[in-house]
């Protein structure tokens, strides 16, 4: 542990009671895959909606021996990731890494790393909405009854209407899935590309929604199936021929951004997973 930890605060900022309460909710969540477990959600020195749910899970989980990775949009250097990492290290002193394989706990917003995760790793996702029924039933009391009765008809109608209106299942991110053939679950705004990674995975996925005060989980080896119709199957964003302009990856989620150059600049598609891209480039250099 590093020496410059703020002594005014408990290890990992939250008091031990708060951490225990979160761990109890986590255990319940793991026991009921995909089920929304309410928790009190403490106030934090980070704004609501900026990752306070994921942060509370991470703070409740980490021990001094953990190695932490924090990403936002797949990138360790994204401003919000930098900021959350700063708070966690300042209050725990634990080791951090950008290497996906070296991390024991990974907190993420909007992405699941490209590199397959192992059973000794935990992925903590920051969640804005929590309830996938929100778009069709914003009233929490009614939505809770619908979950209890596995009454997801309204959601199917919503999907059907999107096919009729736009000719496709018009949900870009935050794609709804059925977990363990029981609960409808919000995958958080990960792209559709990442959704299959949840299915029968080796890793424990934990989801924290701080503002909405809900925790849920997908334990290892759990069936996670995206909602789809026989004639309108779930498809990812993958486009044949797509290629990362930096590492050449053809099988990764790419984002477009502006690159300044001598001629004024150009738009490029590159891997959103910064560590994956960097590793591939290092590998290519080593073998070249």
């Amino acid at each position, binding site marked *: 542990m590093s020496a410059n930890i703020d002594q005014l605060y408990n290890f990992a900022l939250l008091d031990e009671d708060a951490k225990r309460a979160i761990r109890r909710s986590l255990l319940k969540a793991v026991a009921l895959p995909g089920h929304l477990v309410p928790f009190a959600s403490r106030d934090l020195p*980070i704004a609501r909606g900026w990752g306070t749910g994921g942060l509370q899970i991470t703070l409740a989980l980490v021990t001094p021996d953990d190695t932490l990775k924090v990403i936002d949009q797949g990138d360790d250097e994204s401003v919000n990731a930098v*900021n959350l990492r700063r708070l966690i290290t*300042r209050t725990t002193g634990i080791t951090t890494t950008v290497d996906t394989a070296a991390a024991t706990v990974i907190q993420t917003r909007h992405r699941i790393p490209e590199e397959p995760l192992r059973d000794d790793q935990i992925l903590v996702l920051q969640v804005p*909405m929590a309830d996938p029924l929100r*778009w069709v039933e914003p009233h929490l009391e009614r939505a809770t009854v619908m979950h209890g009765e596995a009454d997801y008809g309204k959601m199917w109608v919503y999907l059907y209407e999107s096919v009729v*209106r736009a000719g496709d299942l018009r949900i870009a991110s935050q794609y709804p899935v059925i977990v363990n053939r029981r609960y409808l679950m919000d995958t958080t705004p990960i792209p559709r590309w990442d959704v299959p990674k949840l299915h029968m995975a080796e890793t424990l996925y934990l989801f924290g929604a701080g503002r909405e005060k809900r925790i849920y989980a997908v334990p290892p080896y759990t069936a996670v199936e995206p909602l789809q119709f026989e004639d309108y199957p779930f498809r990812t964003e993958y486009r044949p021929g797509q290629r990362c302009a930096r590492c050449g990856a053809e099988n990764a989620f790419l984002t477009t951004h*502006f690159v*300044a150059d001598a001629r004024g600049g150009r738009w490029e598609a590159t891997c959103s997973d910064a560590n994956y891209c960097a590793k591939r480039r290092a590998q290519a250099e080593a073998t070249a």
Partner: protein
Amino acid sequence: MGYVAVRGGAEAVARAEELVECLRLMGGSTPLHLPQIRDQLRHAVSRAMHEGALYAPLLAALAVKQAEGDSIEAAFLLRAYRTTLPRVMASLPVSGREMMCLRRISASFKDIPGGQMLGPATDYLIRLLQPALANEDMSVVVRAAERYEALVAIGGQRPGEVGRFPKVADYMRQERIIVDVPPDLAREAPFDITREPLTFPCPRSARLQAMAQADTGSLMSLAYSSVRGYGDAHPTLVELRYGYLPIQVAHPLTGEPITIGEIEATEAEVASKAHSVVNSAEPPRFNVGYGFAFGQSELKVMSMAILDSVLTQARIGSLSGESGPAADEEFVLLHSDGIEASGFVAHFKLPHYVTFEADLRVLDRARDHHAERASRLGQLVDQALEEQR
């Protein structure tokens, strides 16, 4: 000296005013100077200006002082002043492209032409109280100037840079990602809700003006309801920029544009996930919402831009799922003005004993009716019991 304005009312009102004045000063601390408020409470001043719909930093500082920091009261004071001024002329249209940016960010792309520039932002601040601020003296002012100079030096202006940046929205329009600026065909000059009555349906310029002077909290709450679940907003921030905007008017004789000053302002565009379906012949694009406010007022312009996009989508019928109150233009525009809303909510403090007397008489009649029915019911029950025996 009674609450009711019958006799002695004038005196009561005068004494109440006096008491307010005394309470403001009775703590014994040094009276605030307007430049202190303008410089060190700049968000309070900005809020008074955009909600008061008058760009006048020192007057706004005065309003904040007089209102003892109450944001709605400060905006009210400025509006009440503004209404006494003639509208001499309208400025030429001002474009955000001309802004000398202190800050500009986009959430849509990792990097953008001209680069992301975080600038002065509290977004990533870890919210810990800073005890050092409790006891500052003039030495911190001197140090701040030095630190600012050092920060500017680190930033290192490159030759040819002027502080103006290309707009992300322009790129997205060029790539046909977002819709073009909707032509407000009905009118040439923008609608002015201070000169023309706001009736529905209203042109978009009326909507934007109404929101630009609306209460920040109300817009935030409605925008939040729409992104949280009582709506179909799904916004992505195309760009938010904050800085100084030159204001030009046409010379009354020659028509030449003349710069008459600059204002501090924030503007934002958001793209909505819902596709535009205005013209079925054209391939779909994302819709855009626009927000603008005086000062560094990021929450206000984000809320406004989200609501603008939701209202546009509601109008063209491209919403799906639960649309919620934020998609109702009348609901949004008629309930978000801080001056109107606060005035009416507070007016229930006015004497209402005439209407209340009338209410009491209606209550009497309802009670009589209840008693009559109860007694009739009672008779029937007695009758039934009698028959049983």
